[in-house]
């Protein structure tokens, strides 16, 4: 086993708020520049660009399929999958659970699926940055039923952080959570003592190329896979995780 540097919260051009520069090729180049061994592309309620990032990366770095799901309570949850089919199946379910609002590019930005060569595959017309008609508990159950791992995103910040929106950790397992890129670990544990003993991830939440790898988590794993990540999040099997240092607050 060894330490792998992971940034498991990167947006692409498919997120309306993500830069159009975030093509699969650019994401892979920036991840290599930042020395990342493992990444996940987590667009809002969508996973589609992950498959092209994975093709482009060809294992360097390893790429988990991912998405950032916004529940009916407006809590954001990161979902990770090993296989493309499960992630894309969930994407299709979420799309039908999204309000039927068009994405006005002037207000929200474009939502573009781009392949590994930089060709535009399609533009998503429905606004992805909306809560789906599924409760937080339903979202987590669906992710797990499809073989994925659910991790509440940037729990301490608004908008979308579980603890900020819902005040307390709801009943449930919650083996791991992500904290905001700028929150010192000690501060998070002081503010939310219920996080003690849980796996704590830090991701960049990158919306621009230069932000990829600005925050990370080191994972002690046999290999950079979903099954190994699952062990590390639960602190099992000798797998470990260690969130990197906070960035300077940018907001």
């Amino acid at each position, binding site marked *: 086993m060894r330490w792998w540097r992971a940034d498991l919260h990167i947006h692409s051009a498919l997120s309306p708020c993500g830069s159009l520069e975030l093509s699969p090729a650019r994401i892979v180049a920036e991840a290599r520049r930042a020395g990342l061994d493992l990444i996940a592309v987590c667009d809002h309620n969508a996973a589609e660009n992950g498959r092209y990032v994975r093709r482009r990366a060809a294992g360097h770095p390893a790429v988990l399929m991912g998405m950032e799901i916004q529940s009916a*309570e*407006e809590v954001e949850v990161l979902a990770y999958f090993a296989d493309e089919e499960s992630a894309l199946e969930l994407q299709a379910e979420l799309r039908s659970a999204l309000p039927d609002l068009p994405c006005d590019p002037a207000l929200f930005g474009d939502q573009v699926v781009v392949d590994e060569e930089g060709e535009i595959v399609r533009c998503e017309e429905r606004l992805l940055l909306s809560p789906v008609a599924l*409760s*937080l508990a339903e979202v987590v159950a669906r992710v797990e039923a499809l073989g994925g791992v659910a991790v509440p995103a940037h729990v301490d910040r*608004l908008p979308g952080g579980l*603890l*900020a*929106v*819902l*005040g*307390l950790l*709801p*009943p449930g397992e919650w083996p791991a959570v992500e904290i905001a890129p700028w929150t010192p670990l000690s501060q998070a544990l002081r503010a939310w003592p219920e996080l003690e003993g849980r796996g704590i991830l830090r991701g960049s939440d990158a919306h621009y190329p230069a932000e990829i790898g600005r925050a990370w988590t080191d994972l002690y794993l046999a290999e950079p896979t979903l099954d190994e990540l699952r062990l590390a999040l639960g602190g099992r099997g000798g797998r470990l995780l260690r969130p990197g240092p906070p960035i300077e607050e940018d907001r």
Partner: protein
Amino acid sequence: MELGRVVSELGLEPLATGDLTRDVQGGYACDLLSDVLAHAEAGDLWITHQRHLNVVAVAKLRDLAGVIFARGNRPSPDVVARAAQEGVNLFLSSEPAFEVAGRLHRLLHP
């Protein structure tokens, strides 16, 4: 003002009720539970669209007079059952939060 009177004046549908003789001391309107935890005061009647189970925990922790789910946002049966168990008063209003808050404010500050 006594909670029971507020309920009838505002035409609220009781979902889970404990002590309706409680004194309503004020109101708080917010959908962010962390904000309610930090700023609502004991005896407040809380108006929200948030229907998560944690609403019950927050109302209990802050010793709120009760919770009004606005615009017909009916919570699930497990939320209602937990509230009944914890003695937290829950009500439903068909009106939007703005209307409920306006009417409650007029009632408490005539």
